[in-house]
């Protein structure tokens, strides 16, 4: 199992080398070094997955969790300590494969996409740092290790969003992303503190063992404001996950994060980092389902709401990357909902969630890479400036179409299989959520094909330069990912990943599958009717639902609400008065006041030391007199 360690160390090494010596070597060599390292890592990850799933992992029909490496990094007190190590279980091994594969494709793609950019070496250094941190996150043996790498992916994301650091929008977006997720991480931290206070451990294996008996015994019988300590802790931890995975209302950072280079959006803000929240809940799933089922149900509702909400916004976006970003939010919320409807006895939702995570990583990464190719060719993010690109960019067109079909859930593309399982799980456990998810499926197909038709069909615009084909590296990466998109749905996923480590057989429920496909097809048909040729019908409809359309286009003003909260409330009503208080009251009144008082007193009593002998004699005589009388009388 030493390859598991090696596949983590390679990106770290790349980061250190490129970070320290990047400016001394040429951009080309730096890029190739990073890419080679990442590809090596991907090969190792695939090897590891083969060994885990087919040779080492299974004993007596159950996939075991392995901890090949672990050492104590920091000891807090007797039983609490942070270990750093590698924890392999079916989900983490699957994640290793996804991360390294997508990352290596993005590395290859970036060789072409970022060519000639200033700071090319820096870009590759940060990509390596991100990949290392993300890998560290998924192999975490304990919740604190996860928190450590959680922060590290956050900072890599900050650095990469702000890659074009001379653009004000990029600076603002990177800051926003970091601070919003940091705010959510506060919940994570407090949740971890609370959980570890009761359980005296951070270790995932100990927390989840025997149906999370440890948490159930120690934290469910203590309650505070009507909720058990376990619910509080797991709820707060979910807040952290909601921040990273852009759940409502903490999603505001993700659309802005599109200011980063497009390959970065593809890797970090579509395929890997943003699913960290889903991954975390999956790892802690037994704890959620046994010790905090109320929180799990809540997660389901938050997910469903976010999925619907983001899908509505995605319809009204005109920036291709932002539309995809809202689609990402919506799809991640889909995974969250699936976890919310899963139970330990009926693990369909759990498996489905992980399956969707797996397929989504590929098709969404591909969509972003296509978007990058389009932006490269046209020089703008605005879909209004694109049209009839099918003629100029056949490969990109094909790749985009495949991923649109996948995300819409048309068989036999990957999204169909995972979405169908999610719908089945929701149907069996919560009909309300099922209906919401079905509507979202329709909306998803609609907004994706809206994008598709507006970009690739319709009239050709007057392009200043005819849109050119992408460089070979970009085309290779897109083609490779397109193949993954086609085949990833055929993986017998439930054979490998189940809620208790066992294999299941899944059968496609014809009724639900039909419902899903019909929803998707109707979305596509409507989109085709409205957008296939540039008739004014879409604009007419938008005008009829003017208010709704404006609200959706403005993302339902959630950003404005946040800005009001932070700018007016936190800065205006907290920070400003405090700074004023410090300057005026503490400093002005108390400290300087003490100084002035001293001066005043000195001024008052200095008259006594006048130097006039008559005055001294006067005081002396009357003083003596006064004392004498006082002694005589008392």
């Amino acid at each position, binding site marked *: 199992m030493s390859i598991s360690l090696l596949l983590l160390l390679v990106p770290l090494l790349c980061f250190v080398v490129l970070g320290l010596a990047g400016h001394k070597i040429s951009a080309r060599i730096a890029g190739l070094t990073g890419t080679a390292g990442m590809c090596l890592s991907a090969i190792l990850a695939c090897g590891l997955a083969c060994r885990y799933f087919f040779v080492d992992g299974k004993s007596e029909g159950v996939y075991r969790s392995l901890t090949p490496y672990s050492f104590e990094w920091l000891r807090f*007190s007797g039983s609490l300590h942070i270990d750093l190590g590698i924890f392999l279980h079916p989900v983490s091994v699957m994640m290793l494969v996804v991360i390294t594969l997508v990352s290596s494709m993005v590395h290859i793609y970036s060789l072409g996409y970022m060519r000639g950019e200033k700071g090319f070496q820096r870009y590759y250094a940060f990509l390596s740092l991100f990949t290392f941190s993300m890998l560290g996150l998924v192999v975490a043996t304990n919740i604190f290790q996860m928190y450590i790498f959680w922060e590290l992916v956050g900072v890599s994301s*900050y650095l990469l969003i702000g890659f074009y650091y001379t653009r004000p929008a990029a600076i603002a977006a990177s800051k926003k992303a970091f601070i919003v997720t940091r705010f959510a991480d506060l919940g994570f931290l*407090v949740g971890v503190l609370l959980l570890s206070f009761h359980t005296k451990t951070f270790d995932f294996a100990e927390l989840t063992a025997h149906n999370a008996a440890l948490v159930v015994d120690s934290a469910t019988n203590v309650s505070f404001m009507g909720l058990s300590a376990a619910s509080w802790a797991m709820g707060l931890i979910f807040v952290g996950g909601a921040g990273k995975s852009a759940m409502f209302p903490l999603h505001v950072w993700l659309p802005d994060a599109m200011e980063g280079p497009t390959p970065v959006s593809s890797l970090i803000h579509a395929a890997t980092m943003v699913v960290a929240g889903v991954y975390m809940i999956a790892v802690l799933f037994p704890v959620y389902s046994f010790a905090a089922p109320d929180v799990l149900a809540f997660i389901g509702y938050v997910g469903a709401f976010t999925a619907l909400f983001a899908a509505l916004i995605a319809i009204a976006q005109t920036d291709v990357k932002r539309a995809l970003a809202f689609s990402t939010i919506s799809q991640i919320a889909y995974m969250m909902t699936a976890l919310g409807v899963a139970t330990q006895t009926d693990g369909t939702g759990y498996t489905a969630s992980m399956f969707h995570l797996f397929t989504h990583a590929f098709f969404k990464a591909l969509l972003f890479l296509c978007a990058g190719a389009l932006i490269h060719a046209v020089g703008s993010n605005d879909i209004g400036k694109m049209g009839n690109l099918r003629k100029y960019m056949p490969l990109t067109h094909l790749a985009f179409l495949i991923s649109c079909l996948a995300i819409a859930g048309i068989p036999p593309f990957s999204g169909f299989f995972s979405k169908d399982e999610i719908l089945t799980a929701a149907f069996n456990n919560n009909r309300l959520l099922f209906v919401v998810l079905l509507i979202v499926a329709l909306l998803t197909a609609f907004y994706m094909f809206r994008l598709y038709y507006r970009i690739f069909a319709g009239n050709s615009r007057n392009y200043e330069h005819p849109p050119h084909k992408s460089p070979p590296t970009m085309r290779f990466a897109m083609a490779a990912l397109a193949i993954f998109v086609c085949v990833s749905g055929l993986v017998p996923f439930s054979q490998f990943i189940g809620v208790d480590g066992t294999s299941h057989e899944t059968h496609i429920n014809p009724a639900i599958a039909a419902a899903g496909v019909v929803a998707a097809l109707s979305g596509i048909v409507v989109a085709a009717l409205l957008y296939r040729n540039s008739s004014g019908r879409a604009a007419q409809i938008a005008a009829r639902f003017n208010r709704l359309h404006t609200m959706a286009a403005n993302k339902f003003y959630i950003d404005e609400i946040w800005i009001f909260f932070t700018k007016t409330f936190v800065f205006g009503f907290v920070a400003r008065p405090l700074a004023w208080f410090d300057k005026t009251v503490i400093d002005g009144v*108390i400290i300087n006041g003490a100084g002035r008082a001293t001066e005043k007193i000195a001024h008052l009593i200095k008259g006594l030391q006048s130097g006039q002998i008559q005055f001294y004699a006067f005081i002396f005589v009357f003083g003596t007199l006064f004392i004498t009388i006082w002694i005589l009388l008392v």
Partner: protein
Amino acid sequence: MNIFHLTLLSSFVVVPLLMLVVLFLCRNARQARTVMVIGSSILLMLAMVLTLLFVRERAVSNAPMLFVSDLVWYAPLNIHYSIGVDGISTLMLLLSAIIVFAAVFSSWQMNRDYFLWFCLLIIGAFGFFISTDLFTMFMFYETALIPMYLLVGIWGTGKKEYAAMKLALMLMGASALLLMGILGIYYTSGAKTMNVQTLIDMNIPLMHQYWIFPLIFIGFGTLCALFPFHTWSPDGYASAPSAVSMLHAGLLKKLGAYGCFRVAICLMPQGAHELSWIFITLAATGVVYGAFCAVRQTDLKYINAYSSVSHCGLILFAIMMLNETAMKGAVLQMLSHGLMAALFFAVIGMIYSRTHTRQLNEMSGLMKVIPFLSIIYIIAGFASLGLPGLSGFVAEMNIFVGAFEHDDIFRRVLTIAATGSIVITAVYILQAVGKIFYGSVTNEKHRQLPDAFWYDKVSTLILLAGVILIGLAPFLVSGIIEDGLSVFQLRI
């Protein structure tokens, strides 16, 4: 009496004393600089050797203090020159030596007279950390504080007279409380000694602890920027030359924190326990309050001065939690903040010497012009907001986990408030970074600026190395810290 022990520790005072004498003989700044470089290198080596010797000696001895020696100084009042170190003071000596070394390279343009006061200050700082006698401690403490007045008043910038006066008066006022407290300890404990190690075993009656503890804690706490006695620090740091800010934020504040631990907590644990609610509240207020104030500042030095109020508040907060985990966090935070604050002020000084402004809105796009300094500032910023892999994270996590070991609502609420400061820290750090380093250069005068000179690099890289080392391998120091806390643990 072990001559080796006596010379080993005393050399921390004797070396700067010799530097002081040699400086008098120097004729120009160049010679003075040479003396300082040689002297501070010797100190750094001594501190490293001491740490290694300490670890080796600790393996065979379990006395609370090592390398102890004792000379009678003034018998009628039982004043001794008694010295010795435990894990915490060893690390503080190492920290001091690193900061002094870095500060010398940051004061490259300064003249001989400046270095004279500089030496006096470090005599006081080192002397304080090696002393185990209350009176000697107090004496060294004052020795360290007084040069500050001149260093700020003469070599400072801005409204330096006001700042110097305020700083000196507030800290002297605190010293007055301290002196009262020390006399209180001496007379109420009944021990005819001022030795801290002996006093630990004497029980000061609880009744007296009620008034002595606040005196000592506020006395030392003022130097550690305890809210609401912190306002000397923003003005003081803003006016002081950058190397002096480094020494003050990095080193002198740690004198305060160390004093709180060594004298207030160790000698009066019951009093500390009884009164902890007051000081926890004050410290937690300082943590959040300092962070919010920093958000509103527009001057780089003010931002970091308030940030330092917030981070030092966390030290005091952790100390008052009175358990081993939080205490360990406090000591780690002392190390971490020492290195980090020194690094910040060093870089700010270097930026200021190039741009001649510290106002956020007068600078932008410096990343393109002075990439080395910009990157160092950003990394220091990350350390400050508690990024894993850098020292701040390790310290803060120990503090929060330790604070959460208490199961009462009062401490929980304050702890959660204190954890909230890490978000606000991110706000003011990223705000400043975004404004001055990113974007494009707007000020024409800033288009051509020299990046770090070699001495700037020496100064920043050694501090950065410390920040990264603690961040990546906290186990290197946490063992040594636990050793120092074991005495304290027995007392609770």
